[in-house]
Every structure is written in C-alpha cells, then in structure tokens.
C-alpha cells in the first residue's frame, strides 16, 4: 500500500492538522509515513497545503506532483490540484467552499457539504474531521481508533475536551453517501 494524499485549503481550515493526524495514525499502525507542510509565505498568503504519504514500504520522496487522493477545501486549491490526481484516484471537496469543481472522468469525485454539516453540529471547525471521516470511508487506509489516538497528539491539551466532538464529526463524515459526479474536465 502506498497512498499519496494532498490536503489543501485556507489557513485556519485545519488543513495541516488533518494531514498530520493521518500521519500520526499511520505511524501508530506501524506504517511508514511522511508529512510535508507548506510553510511561510504560502500560509501567510491565506492558503495552506500538506502532502501526507502513508505506505507499507520506505517512502522515497516526501514531495510528489501527483496524488492518489486530494482533499480540496477551497476554490484556489481546486484550481491548483484537481488536475494532479492519478487515474483511479479520489477527489473529495467541501461543497460550501468550492464553487466550481472540475475533474477528470478517471477520478472519483465526491462533494461533501462538510462546512454546512459542521455548522449544524455547532462548530464550523469540525469541517476537517468530517472530510477526514469521508476519506476514511472511501479509502480503508487507517482505522478510526488510530485517528483518535493521533488526535490526542495533534490537538493541544487545551482542546482535548473537544475529542468527543471530533469523533462525532469523523462518524458523520463516514456516514455520508456523497454523490459521485461524472463530469468531464472542462
């Protein structure tokens, strides 16, 4: 197994922590992992992304140009990364923040009303966990229990009272059927 994942969106959407959670969880399951964040001017400019790789074997490059899975949380990220998903790959996007999804027919693309659902749950910041839940369901990469162990490391202790909320959000994400689009790239 080798899964190369990009998560991209605005700073503050929990982009980096989502990738980091997957990396820690993969490590907990004895897999090889790497997490490469964007940093500096990219983040200050309002967009953030990270490449997380989870593998059964030693990871050669932590930086890749094409991805098995993309989680895209705003339009600029969609514009930048949608064309860089491998055939047979998966694209998950937040319907609330991406107005114009476009993708290759060879990619499975699912819009998730993640921000809307998070607001329904009473905390917009749970959006990233809903997306992660949807990812976990589509790609059996990592167990939910490992994600919960990883979250304890990723979340600062002062937010540990939100762990249960985060778990609920992950479960909400895992229940989403999502409607796979079959549009051609324009």
């Amino acid at each position, binding site marked *: 197994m080798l899964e190369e994942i990009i998560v991209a969106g605005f700073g503050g959407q929990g982009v980096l922590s989502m990738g980091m959670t997957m990396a820690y969880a993969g*490590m907990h399951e004895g897999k090889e*992992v790497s997490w490469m964040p964007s940093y500096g001017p990219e983040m200050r400019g309002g967009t953030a992304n990270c490449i997380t790789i989870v593998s059964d074997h030693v990871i050669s490059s932590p930086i*890749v*140009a094409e991805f098995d899975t993309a989680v895209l949380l705003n339009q600029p990220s969609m514009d930048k990364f949608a064309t860089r998903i491998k055939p047979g790959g998966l694209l998950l996007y937040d319907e609330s923040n991406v107005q114009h999804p476009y993708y290759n027919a060879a990619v499975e693309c699912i819009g998730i009303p993640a921000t809307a659902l998070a607001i329904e749950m009473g905390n917009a910041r749970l959006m990233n966990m809903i997306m992660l839940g949807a990812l976990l369901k589509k790609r059996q990469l990592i167990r939910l229990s490992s994600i919960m162990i990883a979250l304890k490391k990723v979340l600062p202790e002062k937010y540990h009272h939100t762990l249960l909320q985060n778990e609920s959000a992950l479960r909400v994400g895992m229940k989403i059927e999502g409607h796979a689009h079959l549009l051609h790239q324009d």
Partner: protein
Amino acid sequence: MKGNEALAEAAIRAGCDAYFGYPITPQSEVLEYLAREMPRYGRLVMQAESEVASINMLYGAAGAGFRVMTSSSSPGFSLMQEGISYMAGAELPCLLVNVNRAGPGLGTIQPGQGDYFQATKGGGHGDYRLLVLAPASVQEMADFVFLGFTLAEKYRNPVLILSDGAIGQMMEKVVFDQAPVPDIPKPWATVGKPAHRSRNYITSLHIQPEQMEQHNLRLLEKYKAMQEEVRFEEIATADADYLLVAYGLSGRIAHKAVDVARHRGLRVGLLRPITLYPFPERRLAQLARQVQGMLTIELNSGQMLEDVRLAVNGRVPVRHLGRLGGMLPTPDDIVHELENILEVQHA
C-alpha cells in the same frame, strides 16, 4: 516529529552542553525546542543578540571544552562565517547546522541547496574545511547530530549539518536509539591552568609566517585524514548504465525518480552523497567506468556538479538539473530529463 525537532532532541540525547542561536525561518523550531527542553537537564540555551554573537559564544564555550552547537538558515549562517573560520583555525570542535533556504540575500524561506559552495569550500576566509553531513530524512537529522559531535571531537574541527527547509519542516518517523556521544579527553581546553602543565592557548593567530605555514600544513594533514570519513548511499547502482547524483531533499526526489525510471525500463541508479566534504569522488570515478553519463539534481544552478565533474575527470558527460528560488523538481521532471538525455545519447 519535524526534522528540526528531531535534530534538537538528538542534541540533548547526544550530550550537547550548550546551544547558542538566533531565530530564523525555516529552522526556528531548533531554538524553540531546545529553549523549552534543555534547561530541564541543566544545560545552557542562549538566544544571542545576533548570529555573529552566537558563533563567538560558541567559540568561547568550545574553547572551554564544552560540547556546543548552533543552528541557523542561509542569511544567518552567512553572518557566522568569520567565527567559523576562527574556530577552524583554532581547531575547536562544534556542531553547526544550516537549514538551507533559497538565496542569494534574504531570498525566500523555501528550501534551497545554494549554500553547497559555502559549506564545502570553506565559507569564511582562509584555507580551511568543514566536515559536511547532508541529511535526507528526519531520521538522519537525528542520527547526524551524534555522528557530528563524534567527528567534531575526533578531529577537533567544526562539523556542519547542511539540511534544507523541507527536511527541517517535514515530519517523519524517528527512532532515538543511540547512546550519548562518549566524552573524550580535551587536554587542550582552557579550564584553568594546573601546576603540572604549561598554559593552554586557544587561538587562530600565528603571526610568524613560518609558524603559520606549519599550522596550515598540520591542518592539511588533518583534512587528508578526514577523507576516510566519506559516506554515501547507493540505490540500484549494481546494473545501472546511467547515474543520478543528488543529496539531501534532492536525493529523496531522485530516489523516487529512479523507481519510476526503472519501472519504465531505464537502468538508472542513484548515488547520494551523505558527506559533502569529504566528497565520494573515488566511488564516482569507479562508477564513471560503468555508466554512460551522470546527472546531478540540485536546488541550485549547478554547484555539486563541479565536484562530480572533477571526480569523473571527463570520462563521461555530467549534466545538471536544478530548480531555483525554493521551487522543487518533481520525480517526473527528472525522468523526463533522463528520457531526453538517453534518447539523444542513443541517437
């Protein structure tokens, strides 16, 4: 753990007595981590007023026999060059870390390898060399701290870990299984003069040319002895008929390119220098008898390229593929370049 954090944790475990530094992206996590953790062990962390002050504090503490370290990134590391030259001249062991960002000048805070010349040719004035280690993973960021202190004290010479912004910022698994670096006697240290020996001097000043030349010659002997510390990693070189040469982050990207190229039937291998000084010139000379050509992958406009060409001595063509300004080549860029080169060579 982030690469910078792994390096900092390793410094504590290796037995670093004192750290002097000044914050700069993309290596500030080193100072932050050590400022938080070192005092628990009764060790010293000092945020100096500048990089120039840091390196001079390092000189003083190293002279007194302490195991010392500093870290910076390109513009800050340039500021330290005078002090590093003095430390090389005074033969003071220390561990230096440069988390390379793209330049020149303030440049950008994204990863670069433009400091290769500065690192390997002696970045300050005078005729001196550093032992230079180039980590390509978070694990090596940790491991090379132990190796770095060991070599610095063995040769009484500054050792440089030349990393880059990506290796510093990325997270990977890291295992800490090494014992602290053993203390070796430092009879030269200025720790107060006991009755039974003469005064110890720590100096790089030898005003008489005759003495200075003798000192230079002794340093040269040492640099010659350091050649046996050469280290490198080879990927798929056994049957390779074309060779990539890349270090650090570029080495990781090139490794992936080898996987992709092999999948497409190209017999490509990779030599990743781990020590940039000493440079694996003998092995490259051997491989030049086996392969049709070499391609260096660097985040600069062709610096290590010159050392590879010197090693190969004209036997095969050596080309360069680089990205600048904090941009990175992708594995596919490398494979594409390889396909072009091999097509031309076969035509």
